[in-house]
């Protein structure tokens, strides 16, 4: 999520007005003029990872050399924050804030630590202070809005969310937060906001859950069930907020977990080489982490470094008692190398390791299709659906397989099954359904499907699909018109 660090005058004025209001109601901005610094805790690092202890020791020594410098306090606080030593970090952040009350990052990062410690009022005060200094820092505004609502300051939280949406109309976190608040206030506009939150490019499990509960509360059990199902599939997924200050802190964590988390984030950003470096360092600390080998198969595969990927497959197999993901990722690697038989073998091994692992059935189907074994592929897509009848990707693959076998009737059946609930994938499913209708000579139905696809693509901001869909619609309309003209 990109955010704007320049200060728009009108927003600046309104945010400052809100912060001023919060100053009165929540003690916002108070507590920074105290010249008495809190006593720093002694840092006992016994048992810490050697690299982590060395890193903290070094920064601690710098602090000891200059204990009243905001930078040494803040740097030490960030390092402790990175390693989740919150009760220590809060003291050093507090000192940094008092020593440099004009520095945004100390107030902001302290606010985040105070949230972790459950010190909500102090966190609100810290975030208010941060926003007085840098009013437009979006992650701080999102977190403050959430905190305010959790603390019962609904009007202030609502105002913050509304300001955020003026600047970022599709910001999922703001849509979600404001949507929940509206529903709590009995306003049905909350549902539309939550729907928009779920339409974003990144899956947002919590928004599906809130939407499901909203539908349940108004007695719409069908929609509620659909949203609960989407939540079940996406529950650990949420859009990234994009918070460079927090990311800087996280990047300071040199423990195995810190390295793996950093690697995952870099992988998500497409920085594959950098991600691999972090994963390899994590393995240097603990070579028994089988899951890391599994990720490295994919990462090296993305770079086309197949030997390295295969080496991690072998290493992972030697230590992993539950190698289903190793087999699956290796299968995907072989598929990428167009070694379809090897890929199929790996997917079969994954299924043998865990007969409930649905992705392996779908991947096996894809491998078999690539080998020209369409009928057999259909069998595995069907097996995927037997394990999870609501699996939309499985239904889509099965529909596509039927289309390739010139059976648009069966394909249309599958596509129709996966149209609800609507999300960003729905326009693609409708496009496929339109193609199936065309195969059945049902031009009116194809036209309706494409019109529906365009409407949903607009609603879900699928701009990448719009021109293609509109082109298809024009061609279908033209063809239909010509058929109408030709008929006697």
């Amino acid at each position, binding site marked *: 999520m990109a955010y704007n660090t320049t200060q728009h005058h009108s927003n600046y004025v309104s945010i400052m007005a809100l912060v001023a209001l919060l100053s009165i109601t929540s003690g916002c901005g108070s507590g920074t003029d105290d010249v008495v610094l809190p006593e720093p*805790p*002694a840092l*006992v690092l*016994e*048992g*810490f*990872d*050697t*690299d*982590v202890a060395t890193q903290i020791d070094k920064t601690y020594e710098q602090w000891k050399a200059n204990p009243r410098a905001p930078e040494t306090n803040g740097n030490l606080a960030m390092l402790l924050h990175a*390693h*989740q*030593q919150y*009760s*220590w970090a809060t003291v050093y952040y507090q000192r940094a804030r008092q020593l440099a009350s004009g520095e945004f990052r100390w107030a902001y990062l302290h606010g985040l630590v105070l949230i*972790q*410690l*459950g*010190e*909500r009022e102090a966190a609100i005060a810290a975030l208010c202070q941060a926003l007085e200094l840098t009013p437009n820092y979006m992650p701080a505004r999102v977190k403050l809005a959430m905190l305010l609502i*959790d*603390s*019962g300051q*609904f009007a202030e939280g609502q105002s913050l969310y509304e300001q955020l949406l003026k600047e970022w109309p599709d910001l999922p976190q703001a849509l979600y937060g404001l949507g*929940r608040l509206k*529903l*709590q*206030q*009995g*306003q*049905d506009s*909350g*549902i539309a906001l939550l729907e928009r939150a779920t339409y974003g490019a990144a899956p947002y*499990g*919590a928004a*599906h*859950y*809130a939407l499901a*509960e*909203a539908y*349940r*509360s*108004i*007695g719409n059990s069908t929609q*509620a*069930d659909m949203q*609960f199902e989407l*939540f*079940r599939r996406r*529950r650990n997924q949420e859009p990234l907020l994009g918070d460079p200050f927090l990311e800087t802190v996280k990047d300071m*964590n*040199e*423990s*195995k*977990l*810190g390295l793996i988390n950093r690697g995952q984030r870099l992988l998500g950003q497409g920085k594959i080489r950098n991600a691999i470096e972090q994963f390899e360092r994590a393995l240097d*600390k*603990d070579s*028994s982490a089988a899951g890391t080998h599994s990720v490295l198969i994919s990462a090296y595969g993305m770079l086309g470094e197949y030997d390295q990927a295969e080496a991690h497959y072998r290493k992972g197999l030697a230590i992993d*008692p539950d190698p289903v993901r190793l087999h699956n990722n290796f299968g995907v690697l072989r598929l990428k190398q167009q070694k379809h038989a090897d890929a199929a073998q790996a997917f079969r091994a994954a299924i043998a390791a865990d007969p409930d692992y649905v992705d392996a059935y779908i991947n096996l189907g894809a491998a078999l299709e690539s080998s020209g074994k369409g009928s057999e592929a259909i069998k595995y897509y069907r097996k995927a659906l037997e394990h999870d009848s609501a699996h939309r990707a499985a239904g889509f693959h099965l529909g596509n397989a039927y289309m390739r076998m010139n059976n648009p009737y069966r394909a249309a059946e599958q596509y129709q099954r996966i149209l609800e609930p609507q999300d960003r994938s729905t326009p693609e499913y409708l496009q496929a359904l339109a193609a199936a209708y065309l195969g059945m000579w049902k031009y009116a139905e194809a036209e309706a499907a494409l019109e529906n696809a365009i409407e949903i693509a607009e609603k879900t901001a699928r701009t990448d699909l719009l021109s293609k869909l509109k082109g298809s619609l024009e061609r279908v309309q033209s063809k239909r018109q010509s058929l109408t003209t030709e008929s006697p």
Partner: protein
Amino acid sequence: MNLKKTRIVFFVAVCSSLFSCGLPDTAFSIENNDDDTSATLFVEVAASAGLSFTHHNGNHGTYNFPEINGAGGALLDFDNDGDLDVYLVQSGHLPGTGTADNMLPRAANALYRNMLVPSGELIFEDVTAMTGTGNTGYGIGVATGDYDNDGDVDMYVMNVGDNIFYRNDDGVFTDVTDHTGTSIGVWSASGSFADYDQDGDLDLFVANYVDWQADAETPCQNNAGQRDYCAPVNYPALSDHLFRNNGDGTFTDVSKLAGISALSGPGLGVTAADFNADNQIDFYVANDQQANFLWLNRGDGVFVENGLRSGSAYNSRGVAEASMGVTAGDFDGDGDEDLFMTHLSSESNTLYINDGTGNFVDGTETANLGASSMRFTGFGSAWIDYDNDSLLDLFVANGSHMIVAERRNVSDFPYGQSNQLFRNIGGGRFTDMSNNAGPAMSAIEISRGAAFGDIDNDGDVDILVTNNNGPVRLLLNESGHTKHWLRLRLGGTRSPRDAQGARVAVFGRNNSTLWKRVHTDGSYASASDARVLFGLGADAPSDMGVQVQWPSGHTETFGQLQIDREHYLQEGTGSPGPLQNR
């Protein structure tokens, strides 16, 4: 579209309106809502009363997962003398985990007899040997209930390994695990006795945790790269067990038939109640870092899991929290069972408010129970009315699951935290009383289990707290008995003899009603007093109307009962009987 449900934000208003319609604040005179004054609400008396038990978890630096979980205890009147005795579960050295295997004697569970009746003094004597209750398995939890309807309370002890079923025959216990067919050889944590099939005897639900094997233990590190205990996700979760009582002293494992074994989850707490008001006993299972289960009883022997759709599996942000202890009770006075459960630090404890149909909303924040629990890892907990003002309060036993930075300097096992007490101040809101409750509430220990009951028979609820790798604590309530109360012991005839599952209503002025359920389950790994204790406030009438909905299905009125005393209510009699007649 018109939203019918506005309950979350307007909960305070809704509750206020409910209460003004006749619930507690007028009926049971809650005139004292000040929470600023410090007072000794509880005093700790375990050692001075003769409870000398210390729990050992067997840790010797190798971070075996069961060590961090601790064990529970029970308050039960095993000898039927009218006072609560204490059973404490011991863990000890964990077999297969190192050099001490052949060096340490196996530590045993312990049973302490309360000498209050007839001596009048709260003194305990260790009767483990003479009662035959000193199981030496690596103990975790205990559940209590009169499964054989013979009038004395039996125990099911849960271990990492083989569980033990103790049948009580006039105060002497016999291991009937094999005979009853309730043997489970995995890690079980909590159990619940309940008559789910309404045939007049108690069935048994056992919440199992994870498949932990000593030889497969893996080293885990925290975010500072420091060796620490692993999280439950590192181990395969187990499915739970449901045993149906055959009525002849044996049970049938119906886990598969009932649908319970279809799902796996790391269960730590379980409570039985009719959550969706269909007159069937359901089970709620608190799972650690996975979605909780709400097993709804269809009435035909089959249960359907409805946690997700009921809104009680995940908190309002869709997060599956690390649920440890769980308690069900009608905290808002609307006649249904609300759920409260305890979680890890960095998560809050969570309050799920029942709408009367078995659908829940997360009301943690509006109830003011969120921020105050963020720094704590909670385990045992219960809805209790500690101040007898007629509103259900909450106690939470806390102790960390991961090294506490501040404790590194002061403890070899640095996981200690203080416990918490939350007072229900009406209107659906709570206030944290922990800092005003006296030193017993501020001790830094690794508390795990908590059992609740009136151990000194003075009309208020006391708390037994079990500490991981530490001494047991007995918190005597010093303030509750200054208000009025009513304690009821129920006896089933068509229903199970100890009447577990019965719902009791006490009618106040203005048609107001307080509801409680006869149960011993809930909390974490522990079992509580089966008697129901109602707080009635400072200005209650001298007698109160009581109605019982028996598990057998019929409802019975017991007329006006005199307050500030205990009554024995036997099914089918319509009037209180002598207390000796149990």
